[in-house]
């Protein structure tokens, strides 16, 4: 019985570690460099990234945009998670004021952050086109608004 319990614990622990390592391998603190010859224009995203990083205490910001929508996925220091709603509101307001032409969606969710990082990687590699990007953005925005 003890063995079974230990087995489950070790399994859960290893699962967690494995996932954590994947994330660590990517550089979190530097905005990902976008290729200049890329067709998809991510200048707005980089601008949003820089301005949000400078003004706020955030551990990471990842931004993607298409021609209408801007999706910002930010991560805050763990001890500030108690004020998550307020921070989310403030950041959204900042971004909306700075980019009034775009439909801004901001999320502090870990999942959205992961997905946006993946999307940025795809953009940098050039393995995604405009239509796919828009679809993916729609999917992520819908996901970020899901409650149950």
């Amino acid at each position, binding site marked *: *019985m003890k063995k*079974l*319990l230990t087995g*489950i*614990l070790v399994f*859960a*622990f290893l*699962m*967690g570690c494995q*996932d954590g390592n*994947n994330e660590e391998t990517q550089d979190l603190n530097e905005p990902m460099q976008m290729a200049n010859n890329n067709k998809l224009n991510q200048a707005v995203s980089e601008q949003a990234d820089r301005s949000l990083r400078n003004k706020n205490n955030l551990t990471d910001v990842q931004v993607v945009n298409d021609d209408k929508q801007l999706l910002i996925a930010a991560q805050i220091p763990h001890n500030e998670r108690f004020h998550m709603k307020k921070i989310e509101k403030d950041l959204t307001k900042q971004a909306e004021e700075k980019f009034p032409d775009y439909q801004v969606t901001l999320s502090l*969710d*870990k*999942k*959205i952050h*992961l997905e946006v990082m993946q999307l940025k990687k795809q953009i940098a590699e050039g393995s995604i086109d405009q239509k796919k990007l828009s679809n993916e953005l729609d999917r992520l925005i819908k*996901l*970020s608004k*899901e*409650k*149950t």
Partner: protein
Amino acid sequence: MANNKKKNLTPIQQEYQQFQSEREVKRPVVKNCIKAFFVGGLICLIGQFIQTFFIYNFNFTEQTAGNPTVAVMIFIAMLLTGFGVYDRLAQFAGAGSAVPVTGFGNAVISAAIEHRSEGFILGVGGNMFKLAGSVIMSGVFAAFIVALIKTLLIQWGAL
């Protein structure tokens, strides 16, 4: 025992109370609290691992990953109860294993096991929620009251 209750007892009973309280084994409250704290924390840690697993490998956000996590935790607790592991853990940790959601799974399955000999319908089916039923009932009732208060506050424009 409270003083006004003591007055109603006969001298012999009072003497016995005195005798009993001197020899009674003291409950190790602090030790129990520490055990409950750590085992309860460990259960939550496992829950956190499962939640992270769901976030990384499935299409769940931090908000939505809670539901499958709770389901998995209850399921694990049910299996462990069936194998007789959870009882030993509960013996050691007390409230630390009863207060988290896993305690709910334990309450359901232990009642089912206990009444297995009375048949499936009247035994298992009828008694499964004997203990857990009160948990569900108070949860639903509390949710109702909170929702009522919130609705009223919104109607009055306070929120």
